[in-house]
């Protein structure tokens, strides 16, 4: 009964031969079943490259390594989306602090900003994603309980005003504090960015953000090749991978080259003002100094770099 000469896995001396045989069969079948059930994982892993899997944090890459990564991403975009794109690094400019201001008196709620963001930032076409949500608000207060972001009628409506909300680029960003792996951080010019190749997709930042500014890639984005914006930044509008967070970057691939954000250029009423607050002659500086501005949820201490104001 005891001390059998040969022992199969999961069979030991305290079991009878027949039972041991069944146990071994069971273990084999069990292993086969596990392999079968996890097969989708193998299909998915086949699309991953070892380089991508082992890539270091963006801020730890040398400029040579960055160039290799950019080139690889460009090739991937060609392969997966059929588009020729240029992906580059757009480092923060010294002596610059970006800020945004929005004139609620003249915003008409046309959502051109939202649409421009969608196109500029290579958003998923299926979900019609955008970093900007425009709320139709009841006059008489700034109460989001009375707001509606899904309105579908001509604008502006009587008795309403319109409030676009996007990333507030907080000076004290709760999302950055939340991230367990420093996949999101604040750049020297105040812009909060995400390394899409480092994010693990836990969505803690999305829970932490008080402004609903962050988006998750619930699946790989789909965009027709001819609609892809080829001028891409690694930390901004390049096509995001599945399963990572993304957010508004004040179009850093444009603004750090001296251009205006896409949402500002698209605004037909001139409600949007953007610039460097450290520049005493900038329009944004004039607005902050001369208009009665306010920020959203000031009581949370997030210190947004996004200001709202009324003309009178």
């Amino acid at each position: 009964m005891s001390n059998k000469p040969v022992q199969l896995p999961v069979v030991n001396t305290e079991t009878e031969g027949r039972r041991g045989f069944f146990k071994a069969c069971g273990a084999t079948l069990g292993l086969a079943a596990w392999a079968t059930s996890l097969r989708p994982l193998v299909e998915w892993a086949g699309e991953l490259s070892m380089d991508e899997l082992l890539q270091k944090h963006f801020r730890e890459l040398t400029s040579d390594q960055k160039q290799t990564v950019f080139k690889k991403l460009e090739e991937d975009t060609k392969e997966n989306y059929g588009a020729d794109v240029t992906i580059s690094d757009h480092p923060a400019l010294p002596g610059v602090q970006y800020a945004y201001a929005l004139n609620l008196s003249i915003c008409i709620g046309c959502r051109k900003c939202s649409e421009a963001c969608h196109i500029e930032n290579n958003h998923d076409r299926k979900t019609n994603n955008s970093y900007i949500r425009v709320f139709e608000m009841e006059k008489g207060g700034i109460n989001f309980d009375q707001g509606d972001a899904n309105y579908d009628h001509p604008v502006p409506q009587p008795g309403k005003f319109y409030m676009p909300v996007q990333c507030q680029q907080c000076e004290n960003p709760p999302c950055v504090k939340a991230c367990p792996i420093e996949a999101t951080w604040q750049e020297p010019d105040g812009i909060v960015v995400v390394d899409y190749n480092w994010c693990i997709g836990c969505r803690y930042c999305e829970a932490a953000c008080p402004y609903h500014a962050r988006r998750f890639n619930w699946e790989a984005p789909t965009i027709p090749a001819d609609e892809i914006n080829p001028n891409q930044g690694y930390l901004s509008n390049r096509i995001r991978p599945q399963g990572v967070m993304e957010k508004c970057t004040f179009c850093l691939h444009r603004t750090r080259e001296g251009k205006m954000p896409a949402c500002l250029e698209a605004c037909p009423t001139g409600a949007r003002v953007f610039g460097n607050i450290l520049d005493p002659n900038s329009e944004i500086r004039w607005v902050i100094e001369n208009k009665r501005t306010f920020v959203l949820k000031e009581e949370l201490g997030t210190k947004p770099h996004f200001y709202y104001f009324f003309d009178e």
Partner: protein
Amino acid sequence: MGNPTHHNPVAMSYLRFLWRAMGVATDGNWVFYAWMTALTAIALVGANAWAVQVRDGMITTNMSDHVSWGLYIANFTFCVGLAAGGVMMVIPAYLYGDEEMHHLVIIGEAVAIAAILMSTLSVVVDLGRPDRFWHLIPGIGKFNWPVSMLTWDVIVLNGYLVINVHIVGYLLYERYLGKTPNPVWYVPFVFLSIIWAISIHTVTAFLYCGLGGRPFWNTALLAPRFLASAFVSGPAFILLGLRILRMNSRWVWSPRPAQTLVQIIRIAMAANLLMFFSELFTLFYSGGTHASSAHYLFFGSHGATGLVAWTWTSMILNLVGAVLFFLPAALERGMVRPIACVCCILGIWIEKGMGLIIPGFIPSTLHEIVEYTPSLIEWKVTIGIWAFGLIVLTILLKLIAAVFTDQLHTTEPESAAVVQSSLHGA
């Protein structure tokens, strides 16, 4: 240490222990085989659902940018509580010198091990990029400690797992060898585990209550509430485990340890309900936007009533469970106690899971109402995790019973003669 294992008698003896433990763990009557086969099948369904989710993206869940955490994080929160609840056996046994509880305390630690594994899995399946899991490993990845509360959670959960695996493993192995465990090697860890158990659930509460943008979670009462409900659900789960073990093994003990647990549950449940009603009073009496999540949870909001049935079910189960636990019959070995346990476990699973996580997102930070119901994939994965946890727990309990009833112990010459005789006695 550096010797190859076949030259090291201690390592060989330990490997033999593991080998024989594996034999015990996979041996039983047809009920055991049916139970384990069913659990394995369910776990397989869950594993497959998760693999599909990783391949096709989390679009296969019903979460959205508005409700960005769902069933997984709900279940995670409950399982952390379950793990922390095991400490309610450790405290009477070690701080109050309850000898009989001392004999059974290893069961609480086994429940903690299974529960920690379930909570860790619940977080892993919630990741969009599990392939990048290594970014979370301190030293190799980029660990945003001490700023991110999630890094604290990683530390305390893994630490708690290690502590409990050590205690359970050490006690079992010593007992298997027929030796008296050396207190130096486990008592300090037991005391550490008491503090650690409190910390795992406190830190998990801090994950939520530290978010200023979510008024429903942003309350200092969250951590105490978590602990109070954990000290109901944990002991309730252990009581069920004790009942099953007593009916299926030769291990005997008096009714006293279970009665102690019932007394603990009575107090913890009263504290939990008190804090819960205190929270509701503050929310509803002062009103305003702070109450909008609670309003949605209990009564629905703007025609959206997705959680109303959940929350009232939870309220009723908790109250019925509490009343049953306060009956004198709950102190006896009858049917009242397991029914009360099931009521409280289910009630708290909803209260702390779907009833706490989901309303944090509804209404959203910009007061939009987007509802959430878990998808089939999410249910499969979550139930799969439970099946896996129960497999682990079954194996641990079986092993503990075998060692503690002297069915499994060493046959090596250096072991105690008493043990030898009891093995070959039959």
